Structure formats: C-alpha cells, structure tokens
C-alpha cells in the first residue's frame, strides 16, 4: 500500500455535478427572479387555466349530447356519498353519546343499588341489635327482680340480725341475773 487515498472516479464526478447543479440553479434563479418573468408565468398559468376550462366546458357539452357521465357528474355523486357519510356519522355520534349517557346512568344506578344494599345491610344489623337489646332488656328486668328479692332477703336478714342481737342481749341479762343470784347465795 502506498498510504495514499485510493482513486475514486465517482467522487470527482459527484463534485463536478454539485458545481454544475449550483451553477444551473443560480442561472435559473437569476433568470426568473424578476417581475417580468413572474408576470409572464402568471399570464401563462392564466392562459393554461382558461384553455383547460374551455376544453372542459366543450367536453361537458359533448358528453351531455352523447349521454355520458363526466368527471363532474362522478364528483357530484361522490360528494353525495360524503354527505350521506356525514349524516351517518352524525347519527353514530348521537348513538355514541346515548351509549355514554346510558353508561353513566347505569353507573349511577349501580351506585344507588350499592347504597341501597348498604342501607338494607345496616337496617338488618339494626334489627338484630334491636332484638338483642330487647332480650337484654328482659334479662335486665329479671335481674332487677332478683335484685329486689335479694334486697328483701337482705332486709329480712337485717331484721333477723336485730332479733338475734336482742336475744343476745336478753341472754346476757339472764346470765347477769343468774350471776347475781349465785353471788347472793354464797354470801349468806
């Protein structure tokens, strides 16, 4: 290897082509970038348009005589199809809106049903609680009666205690009398 860049015949051609393209485009730009050329090209466009318009008119006239459809007739039919499509689309939109509102209503109904279920559940719970409370109330009443009974018993016991105490007092008195009698017998 000589260490030099290999010879590429296309590269120099490409470089030349870049130069040619630039020169040609510069020339075209220089040639066309003036008011006269612009006016002339505008006139050319206008002539082309008028010629084509006249040609189309003649074509339409001939086609109508021959009873043949033209591009305009087909375009009119196509626009009718688009109109029909737009109407269907509007209906579709309405259906979709209805579907949306139905969905939201269903969601609302579902949420109402959920709430109702919750309420029913709560009512049932309350009912059970009420039954429980009633049972407890009866039990409480029974307890109260028992307590009253116990109270009476206690009262009776208190009376008994008092009687017992009085009996105890009497016994002690008797013992004292007996002791006095014994003392008087020994002193004689």
């Amino acid at each position: 290897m000589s260490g030099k860049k290999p010879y590429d015949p296309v590269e120099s051609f490409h470089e030349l082509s870049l130069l040619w393209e630039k020169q040609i485009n510069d020339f075209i730009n220089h040639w066309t970038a003036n008011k006269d050329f612009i006016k002339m090209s505008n006139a050319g466009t206008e002539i082309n348009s008028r010629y084509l318009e006249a040609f189309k008119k003649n074509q339409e006239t001939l086609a109508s005589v021959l009873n043949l459809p033209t591009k305009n007739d087909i375009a009119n039919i196509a626009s009718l199809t688009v109109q029909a499509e737009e109407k269907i689309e509007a209906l579709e939109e309405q259906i979709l809106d209805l579907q949306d509102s139905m969905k939201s209503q269903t969601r609302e109904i579902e949420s109402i049903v959920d709430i109702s279920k919750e309420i029913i559940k709560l009512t049932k719970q309350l009912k059970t609680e009420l039954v429980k409370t009633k049972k407890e109330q009866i039990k409480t009443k029974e307890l109260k009666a028992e307590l009253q009974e116990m109270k009476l018993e206690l009262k009776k016991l208190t009376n008994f205690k008092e009687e017992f105490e009085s009996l105890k007092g009497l016994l002690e008195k008797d013992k004292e009398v007996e002791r006095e009698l014994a003392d008087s017998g020994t002193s004689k």
Partner: protein
Amino acid sequence: MGTEAPFKGSIPEFDYQKEMDRWANVVKLLSEPEPKVAQTPRTEVWRKNKSVLWHYPAKQKKYEIPLFFVYSLFNKPYILDIDPKKSVIKNLTEMGYEVYLLDWGTPGYEDKKIGIDTYVEKYLKTAVKRALRHSEAEEISLVGYCLGGTIASIYASVAEEPIKNLIVATVPIDFSTFVGPEKWVEGLQSGDINIDHFLDVYGVVPPKYVELMFRAIGSPIYFTNYTMLLNRAHDSRYVEKWRRMNKWTQDQVPFAGEAYKQFVNELIIGNKLIKGELVVGKKAADLKNILANLFVVSGSRDNLVLEEQSKPIMDLVSSEDKTYVCVDSGHVGLALSGLLAEIVDQWASSRSNRLF
C-alpha cells in the same frame, strides 16, 4: 521473474472491492422493488371519506395520555413510520405510548371543496374525539409535523376537546419569512401571482405540481441526489437510507384546491395565523386561546421551514408550560432518523400521566 513498476507509488490505487460493492448495490437498487414502509401493526378506529384514524397500540402501556399525530397535507402518512428500525411511531409505541395517526388520505377531484377549516372541523376534531373515546383517556397530546403542526395549532386554538400537550415539529407559523426566491414571494404577496383560477379549474393540485413547487423553492434542477448515491453506493446502509428519503421526497399527494387556496391566501399572503385573524367555522383561530403545554422543535439544518417561522408561536400562546428546542437535523431527517421519537419522549414522558 519479478519486475517493478516504474511509477509505483505516484499513481493512486484503485479500490476494486469498493467498486464491486458500489455497482452491486446499484444493480440491487435498480432491480429491487421499492422499500416497504408503514409496517408497524395498527388497527382502524374511524374512517371518513378518504381519511382514516389509525391506532398503534403500545407494546406495554406506560402512559395514560395518548399521542395523536397530525402530519402534513403534502405528504403520505408513512413519513412517520418509514423505516422499521427508525420509525417514529414504532419507537413511541415501544416506549409505552398509545399512538393515533390521522391519515388524511389522497384527495380526488371530488374533494376540491375541502378547505383547511373543513379538515380541522370535520376531520381532525372528530378524529380526536374518536381517539379519546377509543383510548378511554381523559386528555390527549397532539403532535404536529410540518404543515401538520400548523393544522394542529389551528385546531388547538379552537378545540373544545381536552388537549393536555401540543407538540409541533418543523412547523411554519409565521409566513412573513418564507423560503424561496425573494421576488416570487413578493409577487405572491403583491398579487402578481394569482393561482385561484388555476385551482378552480384543476380542482386539486396534482402531485407532480406539488413536487415541482418544492423543487422551485429549493433547487429547480436537482440531480446531485443521484450522483451522491453513486458516490456512496458502496455503503449499503446509506443506500437503504437514500431509497427511503427518495421515496419521501418524490411521493407527494394531490392537495385539495380549496385547502391550497386558504394555505396561500390566508396563511402565506395574509399571515392570518400570526395576526389572530384566521377563522375556522365561526370561531377565531387565535393562538392565544391555546392553554395546553407547548413543545416546539426546530431543525438547525432545515432549509424548508426556517427557525424564524416556528419560534413566534412561543410568544403567541397562553400556555404556562412551554419549551422550545432546536436540534441538529434537517426537515426530513428529524422523522427519517427517528430522532423525533426520542425528543418527544424526553418532553412528554413527564406530562403524560405515567401509569407505573
């Protein structure tokens, strides 16, 4: 018996392998069919006239807010899905975005009365509604490319739909600066050139005329793309890229007459979008109505839409969150290289409601 060449070392060597590769690729290029484009899997969501709304599902959905692409009326929709390896749409779906694309279709003579306002009101608006319904998202991000960005901006200024983000790339907004021969622009603005009658007669601008218009703006005579190809034909990757780029630049669509009239008279000559005088339906398409987060991307090597044409939108919108970037790219390269997907993701990822 060996002999030594007398001029060895002074004559440059000829790279035979390179030449073999070059001509093999040229033969391959001439004999092979056109490159396949638009290969990302998609489903049709809605159709009207020739327009179709496509849905590209995310590989693994990561963002709640979908991206809605609006491309230029001058091009075909595959520009955003041109190369399977570098496709903007494919890359975004792989990043986790649900992507929608409104394919404008190919207008025929019967569509001559479709104007930009019709495209906005009857096509884009409905398509956005359908995309919102299809994605079940509460908001949407609009992504406009080239003239698609202008249309997306016009729509965003009159939209009632919830647009969270507006992303526009290489977008012409201000037409007071315009690429093209100065005298021609002056002629257009002064009325010396009037193409209304031409458009009325033709109905739609034929694709060849659209191509010639772009040629006239840049280089009326253009053949160095072929010499460039020949020069680098030994590189298979370049040949592949060239084929796709060539397809893009030569594959134009007809432009509906009324839309073209509005484009020339109201946008280029009247510059009404900047002045806030553009009317769509019965609404004023004033850019100050835009409240969506705004992201503007320009290419420093873009010789079709200048930075000065895009930048003014930054001062005209009412958005609080607005970002402008200028990347090292040309007009076509931004989408062709797939760079747009990365840029969009970097900005939109934090503004698209990440799911996990």
